[in-house]
Structure formats: structure tokens, C-alpha cells
């Protein structure tokens, strides 16, 4: 079970977990270049729920997909900007990935560097699902239809948690009477029922024998004979030890340990590349090459084994991962997780599928979850349950959430801070209360007036407004402020210059010339 208890709401004091800076994402289509994101910047702090809201096609989903660097290429590409996830800029090697020559709107030549892309993907595969997870709009499409739910969750667990799993197995294997004595001493020194339970809980999770927690509880309740309890525990663990080749376990652990090392080195290499420290970069490069050669030589047989009969050799890991998968499923309120773990996606309802998706996203304990319209495809009652789960997880384990929706009611319910997007720009960013009570940007104002509100009493205020005009075509977006053709307060400057997102009061940023004359410099 996840037992982190962090202080969640200390937002402003801590360092942001995700920083998006001047993000530009474009799609190259046969009709022209779609400027889907035009210098979007924002920050998300650990433990907060940040909402992104806007019309469909305004770039919310493109933003989230860009953060995961999952923009389908072709047609799309991230063209510039920085995205820091846990202080590492995943776009630091952006320049080396491809050479792009834009001849005209419809004629773009992209020459991708195979090698740079390979390294880039290797790094991102360590970040995705590990430091940051994502759930999607349509869970039915987002789950692999021919893989059991359990296998899909286990895949995620096995990808990122191999080291901790093998540590658990090794610790369990080496459980000796000293450990047992210590445990019994701790237990006997405590009389409070709840505290005793806690000790047992810690013990079982420390040694990876959670499946015996219940029997251990009843055993200790019913027996006063320490030595009997000890032999019983030894028996239990012995049962678990059967058929486990400890040499293999430690070999696999080592292998993954070295792979982790390789990942760290690659990060350092990229960092050095970016800062231009050629000496360090070369040194790192040599180290990587040496380590890679070492791994290839030493673990050649192991890799072949895993390639040919992964299910067989990874069996102890899979067993452990399966147990964790069941735990995760019960964490997201799925009834009968033991059954669901073995079922296929099509056998579950939409709500259950989305829960399974969330369980999958939680597999490696990420600090941040991106929820891309997670409830849009679900029916109303299920929507509420899913939102509740996300909210609970945020409060329980302090997981930050980037919540993307077009539904203002959901924003009001869920989010701590909100960013409003329009046509590929972030136009306003502030706390949830502010955005509803004191919207500044004309677009946000229009947005607020277009939904019925219970807190508006006066006749005049109840009337719903619409924003005139249509969403602009992003192949040829309006010059200057992209909202100016639909804006009631449009001035001359609006069509000439692009307003900058500036802080006009604490925690409140707006990009509009009504509030500040700062414009973006190109």
C-alpha cells in the first residue's frame, strides 16, 4: 500500500514539479501548418490540481500530449520551448532530433536523426509513467483490447519498479531469526491494538509478505507463544521461497541497476550537451559506451533468456507485480479486484475501465497525473465517482494533477488553480475562486457568462451570453492577440502585437492589453 503522507497544500513554498516555458507545437498538414500551441507557459506545483480549460480545439490536449512528448509525428512536432519535469528539461535535446526546413506552408521537409531520437525515447520512457502519468478521454480506446487488465498494470509496474520488487524478494529471502526477534520484541513492547497492527503492517511490507498479513494478525491474536509464532512465520516464508532462483533474482536486479545507471549517465550527458561543456559531455559519452559494452557482455545470456521466455524467468517478479496490481485496483475502488485483474477491457464498464486506467497510471507512484478529459466519455454518475477518486488520490498521496476539461463545473469542483486557453494561447491563469469571481480576460468573462450560475441572483446576471464569432483557423491565426476578432474591447494594438501573460495581482496572470501594455517580443 502507498504510505506516503506528505503535507500537500504547501504549494507556493515548494519548487514547481512541472514547468512549461514558451511551448510551441505545430502540425504539418496538407493544407498548411497548424499553429496549435503558440508559446504556452505555466507551472504546476507538487500536490496541486491545475485545471486547463477552453473550447475544443484550443490546444488543451495538445498541451498535455506535449508534456508527455507524445505528439504523433507525423504530422505534429514540438517546435520549441522547454518542459521541465522534476527539474529535468525533456526538450533539452530538441534541436538535435530533426532538421526542419520550412519551404512554404504546405511544403515542409523534416529530416529526423535516428540516433538522437532513439536516445530521446530511451530517456522519456524512463520519465513517462514513472515521474508523470497520463489518463485519457476514452478508456475503451486507451486500453489494449487483447491484453488482460492485470497484465497491462503489471507491465507498468515491472517497467519502473523492478529494483524495489527485487529488493523485497531478497529481503524476504534473507529473513532470519534476528529480524524475527526484533519484530517480536517490538510487538511485545506494545499493548495498543492499533499500534500492534501497524507494527505487523510495517513488518509484512518491509519483507514483502503482504499476502500473509491477515493470517499473521490472527496468529498473533490467538497465540502467546513467541517461538510458535516465529516458526509459523518461517514456514510461511519458506512456502514463498520455493521455486525461486535467488541467483537469477539478484542477477536481474543487477542488470536493471546498471540500466538505471545508464539512464542517469545519459541524463548527465544531455545536460552537459546543453550547457556546452564538451569535456564533460565527452567523458560521459565514453562512460556510457563503456557501461553499455559491459552490460551487453555480462548480461548477454540473461537478455536472451528474458527475450525468449520472459514469463518464465520473471515469474517471481510477476507474482509480486500482480499482488501490487490487485492492491492498486482496490485503491481505485474496484470491487472484486482479483477477478478484474484477469479480465479483458471489453468485459468492464466505462467507469471500471477508467478506474483501471487510473490504477495503471498509479503503478509507479508518480508525483503527477495528467488527466485529459477523463470523464467526458462517461455517464454522469460514473463521472462523479471518477472525479472523487482523483480528488482522493490527490489528498491521500499528494499526487499533483493536471486536469484538462471543457467543463467549468468540473473545474469549480476539482481544481486549485486554473489556466484558460484560447486558440493555442494561455490567456489567463489564477486560482479557481478568482476565475469565477473576478475573471479579467474578455474571453474568460465571456466564458463565465455563458454558463448558468447558481450564485447569480439578479435578473441581468442570469441571462446567458454567447461569444460572437467562431474559433479561428489555426493555419492562419489572427495577428496579434488571437482573440481580437471576437473581442468586444478590441483596440488597435490588439491586432498588431501579442499581449504577454503578466501578473496583474498576486496569483493572477492575464494576457490582455486592457490590463498591461507588455507585449511579447519575437
Amino acid at each position, binding site marked *: 500500500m502507498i504510505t506516503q503522507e506528505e503535507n500537500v497544500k504547501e504549494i507556493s513554498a515548494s519548487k514547481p514539479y512541472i514547468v512549461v516555458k514558451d511551448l510551441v507545437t505545430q502540425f504539418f498538414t496538407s493544407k498548411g501548418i497548424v499553429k496549435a500551441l503558440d508559446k504556452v507557459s505555466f507551472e504546476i506545483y507538487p500536490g496541486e490540481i491545475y485545471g486547463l480549460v477552453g473550447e475544443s480545439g484550443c490546444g488543451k490536449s495538445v498541451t498535455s500530449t506535449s508534456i508527455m512528448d507524445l505528439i504523433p509525428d507525423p*504530422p505534429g512536432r514540438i517546435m520549441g520551448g522547454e518542459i521541465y519535469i522534476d527539474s529535468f528539461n525533456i526538450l533539452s535535446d530538441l534541436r538535435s532530433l530533426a532538421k526542419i526546413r520550412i519551404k512554404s506552408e504546405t511544403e515542409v521537409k523534416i529530416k529526423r536523426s535516428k540516433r538522437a531520437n532513439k536516445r530521446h525515447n530511451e530517456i522519456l520512457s524512463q520519465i513517462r509513467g514513472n515521474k508523470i502519468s497520463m489518463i485519457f478521454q476514452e478508456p475503451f480506446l486507451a486500453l489494449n483490447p487483447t491484453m488482460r487488465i492485470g497484465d497491462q498494470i503489471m507491465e507498468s509496474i515491472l517497467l519502473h519498479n523492478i529494483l524495489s520488487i527485487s529488493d523485497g524478494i531478497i529481503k524476504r529471502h534473507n529473513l532470519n531469526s534476528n529480524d524475527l526477534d526484533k519484530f517480536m520484541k517490538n510487538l511485545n513492547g506494545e499493548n495498543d491494538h492499533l499500534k500492534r497492527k501497524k507494527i505487523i503492517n510495517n513488518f509484512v511490507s518491509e519483507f514483502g509478505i503482504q499476502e500473509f498479513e491477515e493470517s499473521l494478525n490472527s496468529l498473533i491474536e490467538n497465540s502467546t507463544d513467541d517461538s510458535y509464532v516465529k516458526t509459523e512465520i518461517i514456514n510461511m516464508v519458506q512456502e514463498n521461497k520455493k521455486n525461486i532462483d535467488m541467483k537469477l533474482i539478484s542477477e536481474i536486479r543487477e542488470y536493471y541497476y546498471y540500466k538505471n545507471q545508464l539512464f542517469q549517465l545519459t541524463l548527465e550527458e544531455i545536460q552537459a550537451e546543453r550547457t556546452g561543456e564538451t569535456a564533460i559531455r565527452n567523458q560521459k559519452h565514453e562512460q556510457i559506451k563503456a557501461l553499455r559494452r559491459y552490460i551487453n557482455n555480462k548480461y548477454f545470456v540473461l537478455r536472451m533468456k528474458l527475450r525468449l521466455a520472459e514469463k518464465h524467468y520473471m515469474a517471481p517478479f510477476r507474482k509480486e507485480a500482480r499482488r501490487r496490481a490487485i492492491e492498486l485496483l482496490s485503491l481505485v475502488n474496484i470491487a472484486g479486484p482479483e477477478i478484474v485483474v484477469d479480465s479483458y477491457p471489453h468485459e468492464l464498464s466505462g467507469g471500471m475501465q477508467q478506474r483501471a486506467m487510473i490504477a495503471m497510471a498509479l503503478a509507479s507512484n508518480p508525483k503527477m497525473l495528467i488527466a485529459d478529459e477523463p470523464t467526458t466519455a462517461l455517464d454522469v454518475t460514473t463521472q462523479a465517482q471518477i472525479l472523487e477518486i482523483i480528488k482522493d488520490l490527490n489528498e491521500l498521496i499528494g499526487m499533483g494533477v493536471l486536469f484538462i476539461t471543457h467543463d467549468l*463545473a468540473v473545474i469549480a469542483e476539482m481544481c486549485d488553480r486554473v489556466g484558460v486557453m484560447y486558440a493555442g494561447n494561455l490567456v489567463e491563469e489564477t486560482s479557481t475562486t478568482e476565475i469565477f469571481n473576478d475573471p479579467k480576460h474578455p474571453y474568460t468573462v465571456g466564458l463565465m457568462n455563458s454558463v448558468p450560475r447558481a450564485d447569480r441572483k439578479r435578473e441581468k446576471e442570469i441571462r446567458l451570453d454567447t461569444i460572437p464569432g467562431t474559433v479561428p483557423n489555426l493555419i492562419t491565426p489572427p495577428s496579434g492577440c488571437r482573440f481580437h476578432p471576437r473581442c468586444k474591447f478590441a483596440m488597435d494594438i490588439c491586432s498588431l502585437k501579442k499581449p504577454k501573460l503578466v501578473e496583474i495581482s498576486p496569483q493572477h496572470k492575464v494576457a490582455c492589453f486592457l490590463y498591461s501594455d507588455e507585449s511579447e517580443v519575437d
Partner: protein
Amino acid sequence: MQSTISIFKRSGVQKKRRPKVEDFQATMKLVLKNKVSLTGLIITSVYFILALMDYVYPQYLGAGPGVVTSMLRFNGGFLGQGFPSGPTLAKGWWYYLGTTYANIPLFPAILSALYIDLGYSLMIVLSGAVIGILIGTFSAYYGGFWDELMMRITDIFYSIPFLIMAIAFTTILSYSLAKAHAPINGFSLIAIALIIIWWPTYARLTRSITLSVKSSRFIEAAIASGSSKVRNVFTHVIPNVLSPVFVQISLDLGSIVLIFATVEYLGLGSVIKVTQYTPELGELISAGQTYLPVGIWWPVFVPGIFLLIFTVGVNILGDGMRDVLDPKMRR
């Protein structure tokens, strides 16, 4: 929880359905933009122009119906005596590609064969398409028993390998028609047999489209305004079916040419005795095969290349059109 926000739905006037002609023009424009499809179009057109010229002015190309008879006259009437001779530039353009069995010059023989192959294949595909469209749309639109019957019949046709079915149908049909002294030549017979077994493809294709059209709003509107079923099929369903059928035709034309040639190669055309002999590409290859064991390869190779280039051309054109018409590919 669920709140509808009016402005999130795109406002503005709903786009009107473009007329079919314009749609077709737009499609062709996109097809022509692609170099590969354009090549396909050029190849196909060249072949059809050659075939047409051969039909209209047989005297210029020296081919046309009854070509072999005239060629034999040209050779001095020695059937069976001519040993194939290799390609040569010395004896005029008829001999550029050498001669085949019975010393018939290949070039004019192939040109007149094009007219037979292309003409009959086009006839088969078009007739098959017309029959298929009519049966497919009406049975699907009327539904119930007729639809079920149509599906079962096509099931049966699909359960026999196509070539086997072509062989059986041609044989039996030619036998019974010959007995009845029907004035018909061997090619037409094969064509009739192939039409009989080819229409189910189009019936299936149009059926699926008809079913989706049938459930659409504008058909409901037409029914509400009291339009008759037959009228609905002709005014609403068939126009919608045409463009996918057109793509299918262009994809099928290559296959049909191949099957027609194969059936002729197997010697099915000669089951019926025809007095006036006109070569066909499959037959030409079959005739050229006679001297293959002594290493004379061009009588086999050359007609095949002509066949190959045509089918490649038609196929890339068809692929191009399908890619354009497939909304998934249109970004």
C-alpha cells in the same frame, strides 16, 4: 456535473453537402497532384487510347479483328512453319518485338490483343458494377427477405475459388450456348461467365453503403415527404454509392484483366470453335510457350510485360483514388 456550454459547440452555418460532380472534381485534382497516381492515370490512358485507335483504325496499326488472318497473308500464309525470330529493327516496326509461334509478329498482335483485353475487361467490370449496384442497393434498401437472399447468394459465390468458378461457368455456358447455336464468340462467352460471378463483389460493397445511407437523416426526410422507395434508391442511395464503386472498379480492372488473360491462357476460349481468330494476351503467351524449352523467351516475356504495365498502372491509379476518397487519409 455535466453542463452544456453553448459556445463550446462550434457555431456558424452548417456546411452544405457539396454536389457529387464537384466532389469528383476535387478528388481527381488531389489524385493528379500525386505523382504516382498521375503515372497510373497516364499509363491507363495510353493503353486505352492505343486500344481505341486499334479498334477505330485497324489499317494503321495493322491489327483489329481478324488480325491473325491478315498477318498470315502477310507472311505468305505459312501457318505453323514459322519459327519465332528474335527482335529486329531491320524489317520494319511490326518486327521490333520479334515474332511468336507461327512467325506472327508480336508487336501488332499485342496491339490488337490490347483492344480485346481492355475492351472485354471494361465491359465485364462495368456490367458487373451495374448489376451489383442494382441488386445491392435494392435488396439492402428493401431489406428483410430480399437482403437475406442476396447475402446467401453472394455467400455461395464467395465460397468457391474465383478461378475455378470462372472455369466451370465458362465451360458449361459455352457448351450449352454452342448447342443452342447462339451467335456469340468465345470472348463474349467468357465475359458473360465472368460477369455472372463478378457482380457479388459490388453487391456486397453497395449493400454496406446503402445500409448506412438508409439510416441517415436525409433519407428519413425524403420518406417523410412521401417519396417512393424506388425513387429514393435512384435519387439518394445510388449517387452515394457511385464514388466508392468507381474506386472499386479501378482497383478491379487490373484483376479482371489478369483473370481474363488467365482463363484464355488455360485455353478456355478455344473450347468454342471460332472461325475468325484474334489474339489475346493470355493466348499469345500460351502460344509463345511452345518454344520455351529451347530457350526462346521473348514470345512469353513481351506480352506479359504489356499486361504487367497495364495492371500496375490501373492499380496505382485505383490506390491513389482510394487514398483520396478515404476520409482517414485526407488530413
